[in-house]
């Protein structure tokens, strides 16, 4: 049976030689041959996408500039409203004695397809996504800072240990001291809070309480906590920079988000719902701009239904 007695395995050999023999064997093993054509093609596609993305970086800078300009205008508007509010109430205050006038509330609704940056009186910055509503006082009186939101809003709360900041949404409240987080509550059945930095305390209408840690995301369904998970927060805050991060998400998921952002109803052919997308999507003010980009990535076509809120996506 032995072809080569010098090398062949023998149970009487000492351990060292035995190991050497095994090493010889592992060296002589050939790696399975693999057809790597698919990998090369996939890499090429990703390289191309990368190139397009870096070109888009310029467009991004321009759109961030626009958002910043928008913020300045709103801040000015806010100061203006604030000051008129105070002056008119000052008169009433004199009539009613020396009571501190209650601050007026402002309410903002973000137009479809746009984002708005707001600076509140205490220095808290917030970015509200498409179709969101924010109600906030022109000044913060009393010992809490309280705002109300509907839709998706990113908060960068100014630190003030003495006055907690409270965000109320349909079904829950988030209480913070100073931190960065994102509240999404377009629908009370599918709301969520994503914490980027610091710590927040979440209380639901059914009186469930949880203290969140950074990178945690809590899903809330009709006032009860549904799921707590650890996430890559950039996926849930990318919209604040004007883009929707697609990284490894399916067309079905993306369409769900587009439906809420644009207040439309997109129907996707089941053959396409599982398609994965990479890169990021610029949220244009017009849904058709978004469709044009999607059509350039996926071979698909979009039909607008006569009711002008329903769209149908099918393979091309």
């Amino acid at each position: 049976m032995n072809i080569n007695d010098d090398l062949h395995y023998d149970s009487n050999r000492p351990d060292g030689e035995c190991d050497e023999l095994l090493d010889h064997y592992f060296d002589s093993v050939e790696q399975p041959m693999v057809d790597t054509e698919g990998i090369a093609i996939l890499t090429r596609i990703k390289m191309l996408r990368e190139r397009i993305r870096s070109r888009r970086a310029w467009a991004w800078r321009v759109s961030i500039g626009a958002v910043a300009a928008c913020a300045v205008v709103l801040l000015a508007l806010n100061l203006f409203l604030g000051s008129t509010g105070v002056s008119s109430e000052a008169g009433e205050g004199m009539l009613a004695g020396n009571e501190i006038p209650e601050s007026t509330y402002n309410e903002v609704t973000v137009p479809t397809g746009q984002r708005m940056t707001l600076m509140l009186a205490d220095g808290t910055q917030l970015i509200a996504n498409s179709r969101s509503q924010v109600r906030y006082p022109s000044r913060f009186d009393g010992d809490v800072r309280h705002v109300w939101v509907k839709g998706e809003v990113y908060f960068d709360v100014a630190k003030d240990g003495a006055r907690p900041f409270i965000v109320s949404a349909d079904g829950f409240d988030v209480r913070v001291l100073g931190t960065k987080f994102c509240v999404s509550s377009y629908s009370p059945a599918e709301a969520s809070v994503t914490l980027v930095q610091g710590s927040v305390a979440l209380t639901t209408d059914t009186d469930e309480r949880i203290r969140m840690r950074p990178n945690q995301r809590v899903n809330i369904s009709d006032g009860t906590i549904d799921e707590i998970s650890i996430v890559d927060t950039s996926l849930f805050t990318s919209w604040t920079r004007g883009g929707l991060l697609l990284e490894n998400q399916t067309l079905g998921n993306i369409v769900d988000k587009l439906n809420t952002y644009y207040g439309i109803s997109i129907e996707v052919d089941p053959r396409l719902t599982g398609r994965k997308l990479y890169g990021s999507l610029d949220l244009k003010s017009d849904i058709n701009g978004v469709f044009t980009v999607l059509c350039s990535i996926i071979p698909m076509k979009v039909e607008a239904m006569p009711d002008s809120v329903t769209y149908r996506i099918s393979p091309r």
Partner: protein
Amino acid sequence: MTGSEESENMLYRISRGDERAFDIFMSQWSSRLYNYAMTMLQSRESVEEVVSDVFLEVWKSRGNLLKIEYLGQWLRTITYYKVVTRLRSETRRPKFVSLGDIEEFTIYPMESNDESILSHRQQEAVNEELESLPPKCKHVFFLAKIERMPYRQIATMLNISLSTVNYHVAYAMERLRNKLKNITENEH
């Protein structure tokens, strides 16, 4: 030109943005990285995604390519991290990278045509014994003995100590030795 000069020349061309050199680079490494990723992922589609992500990473950092000291270790490390990230996204686990994340590790069935070293039956016994090792041990053993990575590089890549690497390799070798002894004694 020697092999390493040739490889350096290729890396130089890639670092200057030469896509044809990059194609050659891909054809040289994709099989190896594919086989490595396959030990942990077991799905052709996932593995192709991972390996193409690794190549994209190489292309994006091509400017620093000539500064990389151990190319093989670097590529395997990126592959390993991409695999872990992928496994985690599939199972929604927290973001800590550890060897414990790899619950399954399957080495492809090995075969050597050179029966002068181990008979066919002995080869089968070795494969079988390897498959029965704990996943972590198998992983370290695969990198050390089949991929021929230096122990120190394995320790750095998997974020474990050098003595742990030594332990896993020694344990696996002992198991294989004993297995060989048993079947050879039974044959006589």
